[in-house]
């Protein structure tokens, strides 16, 4: 049974291109109210759970191309940037993704054994920078490797900052099936969106003539203002609330004896950007070929032509700023598929396949893990997250329940810290994937009757301490 479930997921994961910007370990932390972020049908075993402003936050970092150790070399006890080594570590497209979420307020209440309602407000930022391998390759290896070829050196950048206000709930239809949904009203604050970016460099085999071809279109909202003299954010705050959006989370769980299956779609939505929208574009015919010094012009005595040529290039490749109307961007959507099996009382093993889709890029991952509830006061999870670029992501989750207060920390790549030895250098230098959720919840009315199973309960049978 387990083999049939895990093998296809593992195969799918191995073919994945990059890390997801998701939290695999969180799905194992059924003691946390935040577990519903991965699946709105998941329900934590409390009657009431509250997160006060900024008492709970999560940071993400993922880099599908390289780690810090790929960038440097130790030479005679000195640290130097090693471009050759760096370039060889890179993938054709390298994505550096960072995200930060802060729970401004979260409230969860169990109306009855079947119905749980949640209300939350979260500030979220998300940025993704992509640079192609050729961008570094040009500096590391020069233009010689590109003779007769074209180097693609255009970077791409996207960033979004928004506030999400959500209302949702879960409903247990029967003993086996629970469904959940969360509806979100989004207020976009600022956005940078690279619609298209092309910067190609071709090297002619005849005399190494360099042809640059560029095309780019970048949209922004709420950014241009900051470059204007006299702009005062406090006076213009209201205009930053014009960017409305909607999103939805959907999920369900299904119990098969000791096995609990879950599926969810998270952050399926968009934002309409209307405030201070500008487009920055290059002329679509921005092409220039440098063939060296024009002997014809030099012979004719026109030695100043290079200066005028330089001015012409500058104008050709100058970004044009144009005010524009509204535009729409999607937010990074995620999918979770989970399977948890209760191996013994209060001890669960499982797997979570997750995938994030942002624009045309799909970033999947898989987490395998176990969860152990040590009575009602302490829950711990150990996980292993695997990708095709890294296999050293040992995650963990811990929650400590004190009377009325719950302290927690969850991350997909935290166990590397104690395993790195005396210093964190080894851990930091090899880091390509990191997320950490930590915070504090106010929790009340923990379920005492384990027989009344909730959506996330199957693998969790809290026991008295």
């Amino acid at each position: 049974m387990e083999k049939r479930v895990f093998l296809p997921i593992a195969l799918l994961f191995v073919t994945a291109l990059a890390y997801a910007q998701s939290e695999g370990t969180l799905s194992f932390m059924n003691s946390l109210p935040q577990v519903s972020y991965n699946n709105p049908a998941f329900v934590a075993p409390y009657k009431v759970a509250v997160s006060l402003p900024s008492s709970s936050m999560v940071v993400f970092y993922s880099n599908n191309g390289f780690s810090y150790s790929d960038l440097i070399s130790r030479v005679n006890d000195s640290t130097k940037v090693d471009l050759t080594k760096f370039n060889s570590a890179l993938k054709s497209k390298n994505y550096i993704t960072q995200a930060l979420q802060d729970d401004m307020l979260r409230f969860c209440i169990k109306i009855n054994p079947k119905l749980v309602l949640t209300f939350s407000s979260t500030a979220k930022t998300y940025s993704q920078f992509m640079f192609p391998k050729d961008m570094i390759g040009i500096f590391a290896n020069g233009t010689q490797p590109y003779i007769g070829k074209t180097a693609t050196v255009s970077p791409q950048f996207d960033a979004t900052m928004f506030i999400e206000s959500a209302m949702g709930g879960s409903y247990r239809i029967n003993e086996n099936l629970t469904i959940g949904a969360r509806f979100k009203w989004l207020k976009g604050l600022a956005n940078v969106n690279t619609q298209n970016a092309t910067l190609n460099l071709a090297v002619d085999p005849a005399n190494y003539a360099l042809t640059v071809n560029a095309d780019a279109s970048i949209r922004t909202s709420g950014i241009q203002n900051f470059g204007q003299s006299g702009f005062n954010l406090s006076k213009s705050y209201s205009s930053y609330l014009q960017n409305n959006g909607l999103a939805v989370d959907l999920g369900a769980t299904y119990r098969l004896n000791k096995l609990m299956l879950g599926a969810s779609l998270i952050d399926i939505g968009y934002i309409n950007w209307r405030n201070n929208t500008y487009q920055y574009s290059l002329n679509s015919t921005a092409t220039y070929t440098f063939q060296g010094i024009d002997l014809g012009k030099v012979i004719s005595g026109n030695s100043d032509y290079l200066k005028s040529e330089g001015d012409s290039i500058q104008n050709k490749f100058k970004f044009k700023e144009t005010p524009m109307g509204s535009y729409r961007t999607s937010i990074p959507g995620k999918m979770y598929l989970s399977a948890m099996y209760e191996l013994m009382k209060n001890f669960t093993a499982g797997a979570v396949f997750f995938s994030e889709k942002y624009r045309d890029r799909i970033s999947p991952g898989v987490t395998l893990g176990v969860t152990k509830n040590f009575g009602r006061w302490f829950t711990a999870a150990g996980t292993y997250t695997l990708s095709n670029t890294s296999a050293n992501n040992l995650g963990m989750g811990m929650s400590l329940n004190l009377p009325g207060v719950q302290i927690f920390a969850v991350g997909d790549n935290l166990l590397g810290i104690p395993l790195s030895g005396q210093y964190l250098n080894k851990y930091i230098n090899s880091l390509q994937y990191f997320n950490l959720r930590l915070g504090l919840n106010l929790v009340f009315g923990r379920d005492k009757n384990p027989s009344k199973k909730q959506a996330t309960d199957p693998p969790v049978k809290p026991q008295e301490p």
Partner: protein
Amino acid sequence: MVWLKRILLHVIGVLLASCSVTNDDYIIKGLDASPTLAIPLAYGDLSIADLISKKDSANIKVQGDSVVYLSYDQFLISQDIRNLITIPDVGTTTTPMAVPPGTYPPAPNDLTVATVNHLVDLNLSHEKLTEIDFKSGALSYAIGLSQPNANLKYAILISIPEFISKVDGSIFSQQVSGTGTIQLSNYVFKSNVANKFNLNLSVIIKKSSSSVTIAPGTTVNSQISFAGIDFTYIKGFFGDQTVTTKPQTLDIHAFGSSLLNGHNISFAQPALSLTVVNDYGVPLEVNFIKLEARKQGNALPMQTNPVSPILVNQPLTMGASANTVVNVTNVGALINFVPTQFYYQATARINKGQVSGVNFMADTSKMRVHMQVNVPLYGKASDIIMADTVDAGFGNLEGSKIATASLKTNVTNELPLDVSLQFYFVDQNYKVLDSLLDSSQSNIVKGSLVTAAGELQTASVNDKLIPLDGSKISKVFGAKKIIIKALMNTSKDATGSQVDVKFKSTYKIKIKIGLEAKLKIVSNF
């Protein structure tokens, strides 16, 4: 589950303990890289016209068969003969004229009371002029009484029969009194006696309604002079005179000042013509003191037929010109000498051995030497050396940063010209530090293959990657200047013999030069 608790506690303990980092990994001390740059250096799609000095661009022409030729057509103008003849000022002629004494009754008409005639000489030393069209000149006069007499109204009538009005053909005749000048530009001097004219003066008592008494001994004094006389044309006999003309040059830039000695050039069909164009209506003999092709301190005399001195033709009428063709008998040698200048200086002698005659000249008359040089770029050449010096200007670049380098050349040549290039790196005293290429590498441009008639048969294609010696590269960066030296030879035929080749306007040389250089970048912060 006890074991699980122990593991968990251990992990938590280590997690709390492992919270420090060492800075060594994060203090970046430098950057190492070894990129290999492939960059373009130069390119061009050049014809032979592009390679010829731009100073001569106006002289580059194309024949009907597309062969490019250099054409120089210049009139070397001299007005030295016209300047031989100047008309001097005529000094003051003072004439006291007695007025008969007595009381003159009122008179309704002017009354002439005295007349004097002078024969004035223009005082020309060689010339015997019978006709002068005055372009400028003035007659100045001053008239006065020997004894003041307020009642006497008088004037002087100046009459010159040889001065004919250009307007109505009348003779010069004007009443004057007091002082003043009369412009002569409206008159023509015509005299049967060369250089001389009559100056007739008459005293006139003006009509009066009252009587006037003139005391004995009363005279009217006149002073007449001529100055500033120049001519529009003159006729007569100009004398046997010789003048040395100023030196004249015809510059030829096409062959370039950088063309050094040692070349061997043969043009197949050069042409050089010399024509003396004469506006002067006077027998004229031109003696070329210098008539030669020059370059860098060397000179090659031009041989003519007829040999100098040459009696040139003269026009029959004023305003016409007469041509005298002078054949140059050593055209080939002169052009193959690849001169940068044609130079001449001559003496011009008019009326050689003559004592009389009818000559004419206008003030615009000139003697012009019309020199026409046509050099079709059709021929053969070897060991043409051209050189130029450019600043090295490598700034702060260090040779040690270039590990290896190669020169990429891609040349498609339709021109029948082989070019071997060498780059000499010199210090500020032009001391050669090294050269870039070895002898096997310098033949960068191969000439096209030509037919027996010297026309393009097949363009040469030369695509090379020339590795450069590492030790030479390091010396490049010590150089202050680079001397670029090109050794050129025209193409040979299939048998290896040099034939006359044609440089047509349609022939191009497509040059693309690039550089491949592996850099060693070691940067310490």
